[in-house]
């Protein structure tokens, strides 16, 4: 909490400085600084890693298919979601989990993006507005989760629902096109163990909110105080 306050303080002071440098065009943005802690909807996920047995890649395949990703594994290929295999060196305990954009409430990628292409929707989904992205890749430097990919090649035959293109940065959209139609993200739907629970974190009666209250869940790199929208259970 303290950190968030400090960040906000930083933002305001920086904002004031910037306003004095370039008035006019900036005032607008400051006025628009939305606080969406009290927004009615915040989409999130709770992932139960106990179901993520070694070798299971259902969520990844579903994501690739839904979003028209090639599924290639070269360092220049996009991977919106990936399986991380984890081993506790001291105990030898091994487990795995899917890692993707954590849809932070305080997303570093949004803070650093020079054009505002990286942004957070009022419902908490962090997206890249590809109309504005200039492809500077600063957000990729800033993301603690390595969640973003840069489109290194011209693309063809994109899914009509999922526009993607060369020279811009992309990442998990929480299947925003499905969510807006009242559906679940593709990964959540595909998981054979129902390990990915998707829902509205701000609705106290939603299944996810209830479960988060009931079980111990973790944020990855909680030390950074980003208040992630994706939480894990069992790590």
């Amino acid at each position, binding site marked *: 909490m303290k950190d968030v306050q400090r960040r906000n303080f930083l*933002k305001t002071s*920086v*904002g004031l400085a*910037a*306003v004095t440098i*370039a008035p006019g*065009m*900036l005032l607008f*943005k*400051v006025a628009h600084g939305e606080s969406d802690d009290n927004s009615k909807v915040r989409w999130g996920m709770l992932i139960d890693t106990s179901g993520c047995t070694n070798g299971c890649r259902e969520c990844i395949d579903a994501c690739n298919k839904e979003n028209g990703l090639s599924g290639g594994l*070269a*360092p*220049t*290929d*996009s991977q919106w979601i*990936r*399986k*991380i*295999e*984890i*081993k*506790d*060196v001291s105990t030898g305990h091994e487990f795995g989990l899917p*890692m993707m954009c954590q849809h932070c409430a305080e997303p*570093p990628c*949004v*803070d*650093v*993006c*020079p*054009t*505002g*292409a990286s942004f957070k929707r009022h419902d908490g989904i962090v997206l890249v507005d590809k109309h*504005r992205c*200039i*492809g*500077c*890749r*600063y957000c*990729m*430097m*800033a*993301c*603690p*989760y*390595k969640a*973003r*990919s*840069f*489109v*290194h*090649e*011209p693309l063809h035959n994109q899914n009509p629902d999922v526009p993607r293109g*060369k*020279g*811009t*940065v992309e990442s998990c959209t929480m299947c925003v096109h499905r969510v807006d139609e009242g559906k679940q993200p593709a990964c959540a739907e595909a998981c054979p163990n129902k390990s990915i629970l998707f829902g509205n974190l701000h609705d106290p009666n939603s299944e996810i909110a209830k479960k988060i209250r009931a079980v111990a869940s973790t944020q*990855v*790199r909680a030390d950074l105080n980003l208040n992630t929208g994706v939480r894990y259970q069992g*790590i």
Partner: protein
Amino acid sequence: MSTSFALQHKKNRLYYALLAGAGLVVLLALYAVDLMEEKGHIITGMNNQIVWGMPHVFAIFLIVAASGVLNVASIGSVFGKAIYKARAPLAGLLSIAMLSGGLAVLMLDLGRPERFMLPALDFNITSVFAWNTILYSGMFGLVIAYLWSMFEKRMNVYSKPLGVAVFAWRFILTTGTGLIFAFLTARQAFGSAILPPMFVVMSFAWGMAVFHIVQMVIYAWNDKELEPEILERKKRLLGLFILGSLYMVAVYHMTNLYFAHRMSFERFILLDGGVYPALFWWGYVLIGNVLPLALIFMPGMKTKKSAMMASLAVVLGGFAFLYVFIIGGQAFPLDLFPGYEVSSTFGDGKIGSYTPSIYEILLGFGGLAIAFIITTVSVHVLNFMPHDKSYIAD
């Protein structure tokens, strides 16, 4: 008389040959950019792990040096030292030239370079990158005004306040460049408060080195001798700057060693990271520091030659440092689960690999060539040659 005429003729030809050469480099760079536009960044060595590569090494060197070179002007204007004042115009010119080159590289490397004006229109105030666009354009304007105030008699009165403004602005600018990295708190290599001051001190050394090189070439070209006392003093100043930046780099690594979770990164970058420690120790420490310091402070060195050599070594060392800092810093994987061993298809827990491609190197050299062309043409058509009254101790 006729021999000097023939010499002049030869020089003229050399001048145009040099310009043509630099022009060719720029053309090659543009060709590389065009190819990058058509095929995408796949033809560079950059990837999703090493997202900033060779172009950024060149661009950041040029921008940092562009700020540092103004030191010469500041010492003249702000502190009123005559020998530096005489060099202020040249310093201003070099600054503009390098800033142009560096920004061109940065811009042309974008995934969507045609949208480079967007940061100015859709300005995101929390972004250091966006502030930097203001800092850079402001610097351009200020330095041009400053140059004008020095060249135009009627404007001379403004020269001092403008000099002070440039002095302040360039501090903020280099701080801004350092902040680009300092704000990346999630990365072990960056996210350190020491980075902005480190960049400021480094800019002094790199800027001074570039200034030395250019000044010596100009003097040689015009068959003039730089007064040895002047050279000696500036050489010593360069030495001090080198020591200063070495100190900052040492502190940066020491503070990193202090944080337990950054130990493994320091091990990687200083010991067993292959090309990175090699470049760091041989390139940065040895060539970039030990060699120039020896050349500067060892007694009995021929001033002129050793100053030139030392400056070149500092520039090379600067590039080596940036390569290690920027690329090495990204090659080391992010630590998502401290204390655990991780692996994935997306490079988690693995050192990223990066081989710069010819295209991005061409782009980088294109930036150098732009700076070269701006400097050469301006020095040729305008009077940027430092005019020293006979040496005044100050």
